[in-house]
């Protein structure tokens, strides 16, 4: 049942159609930007930019490489943001992606600090400075209705594919076999990026080489601290607080009984 997207960096041609489709479907306004001296634009993800194409240009073995990657929420299957969200605004949808209910968010910003991919962005508010979080929702208002996410729907070279996660894994293996040998321009080191540290992701990438850092992706993303916090400290604290309350109540009755008896003596 789990849905996923497979984004093939070797296919992406950097047209930014997904960026536009994302804005259009999610009703996100355009950003005022400046020329940054490279093709990246806008400069970074923001509360109104949930998807953004990054450009990578580098030389390798005497050959110039130029790749593009649409950057957005990775929809980790074991998502640290969901673990640390105190309101339940971020949650795992039954279809496998990380859904978001903005009305529940209180702007605490834990998700921005615990996301291994630095994806969620906080809106600005008066008083507290930082407001509600925002990020790619996997088109949570399209996918459960049986529709394809806006970015995948619009992608001209079909670099963004949407479907059942299992099927996409198979497609990825077939694609990798083709890229390793058989493609007109082979990528012998092409890999599938689906990091296990966060339980795998619903947003999977085919990278031209086994060097995630080159594409601004962490090599071993993990939610380790989020897990220590939520799986150890959280229950431990609840036990400690509960035990103290019960201990104090018990002590009250024991004391009252003993000290009364002492008075009787």
């Amino acid at each position, binding site marked *: 049942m789990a849905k996923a997207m497979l984004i093939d960096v070797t296919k992406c041609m950097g047209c930014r159609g997904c960026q536009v489709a994302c804005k259009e479907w999610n009703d996100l306004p355009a950003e005022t930007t400046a020329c940054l001296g490279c093709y990246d634009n806008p400069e970074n993800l923001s509360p109104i930019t949930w998807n953004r194409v990054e450009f990578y240009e580098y030389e390798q073995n005497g050959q110039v490489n130029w790749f593009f990657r649409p950057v957005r929420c990775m929809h980790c299957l074991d998502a640290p943001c969901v673990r640390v969200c105190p309101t339940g605004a971020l949650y795992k949808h039954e279809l496998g992606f990380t859904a978001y209910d903005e009305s529940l*968010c*209180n702007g605490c910003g834990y998700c921005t600090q615990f996301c291994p991919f630095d994806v969620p962005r906080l809106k600005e508010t008066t008083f*507290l400075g930082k407001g509600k979080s925002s990020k790619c929702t996997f088109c949570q208002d399209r996918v459960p209705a049986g529709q394809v996410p806006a970015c995948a729907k619009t992608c001209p070279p079909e670099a963004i594919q949407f479907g059942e996660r299992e099927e996409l894994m198979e497609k990825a293996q077939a694609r990798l076999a083709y890229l390793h040998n058989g493609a007109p321009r082979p990528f012998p080191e092409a890999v599938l990026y689906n990091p296990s540290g966060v339980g795998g992701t619903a947003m999977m990438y085919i990278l031209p080489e086994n060097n995630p850092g080159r594409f601004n992706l962490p090599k071993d993303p993990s939610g380790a*601290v989020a897990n220590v*916090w939520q799986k150890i400290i959280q229950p431990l604290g609840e036990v400690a607080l509960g035990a*103290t309350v019960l201990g*104090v109540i018990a002590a009250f009755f024991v004391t009252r009984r*003993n000290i009364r008896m002492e008075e009787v003596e």
Partner: protein
Amino acid sequence: MTVRLKGTERDVVTIRWIPKYTAMERLGHWLHTATFVPLAITGLILYVPLLQSLAQGQAGYFIRLVHRITAVLFGLLPILYLIIEPRRFIMSIREFLFDKDDIGWVMNAFSYYLLGRHTAMPPQGRFNTGEKMNGLIMCATWVALGVTGLVMWFGKGAVSAGFFQWMVLIHDLAMIAAVCMFLVHLFLAVAHPLMWAGLVSMRFGVTSAAYAAEHHAKWYYGPKRARQLYEEAKKKAAS
């Protein structure tokens, strides 16, 4: 002061009140309470899954705002007190230092507090060991909560995510220690039958001489005399 109960001919209690806390100490203590409690409640709303619905949306916004406003007061209080009564502050810090009588207190705390046996209790200063432990935890967690809280408030984006994550963890651990200590402190202050005088002195600044002699002998008699009386009482109990 002699108190004569209605309908009886004999004097029942003779109370001599002696000063224990200054007005500023008491004001500081109660303002600390008045900021600690809302901080703990608003913090626990984010912490306890059962209270999740209170943390959501606009309610959560409001709770975060209250948490921060009270946090500022909570953080400034001890500093303000240090400015207003610096000599008293340093004196109190000295009185909070642990000594070997504190070990004896810990050994006897169980039978003392639960069974009401106070004969074996070593003499205590103006603050007993429990109050010292409370003070130590409150000071340590004041520093920990303040530092980590400031990072969590102003450090988003400025410090690395990994550092921020550990700050959140330490904030939680400090909160657990502080709230557990607070609960025990609250119990002893308002509900423990033997400790009524503590609440009286924190409200009115005075304590009865009889209570001070029994519970804070080193403060009431001075360390030498208190030790002497303690040894005599022990001998008497043994024979």
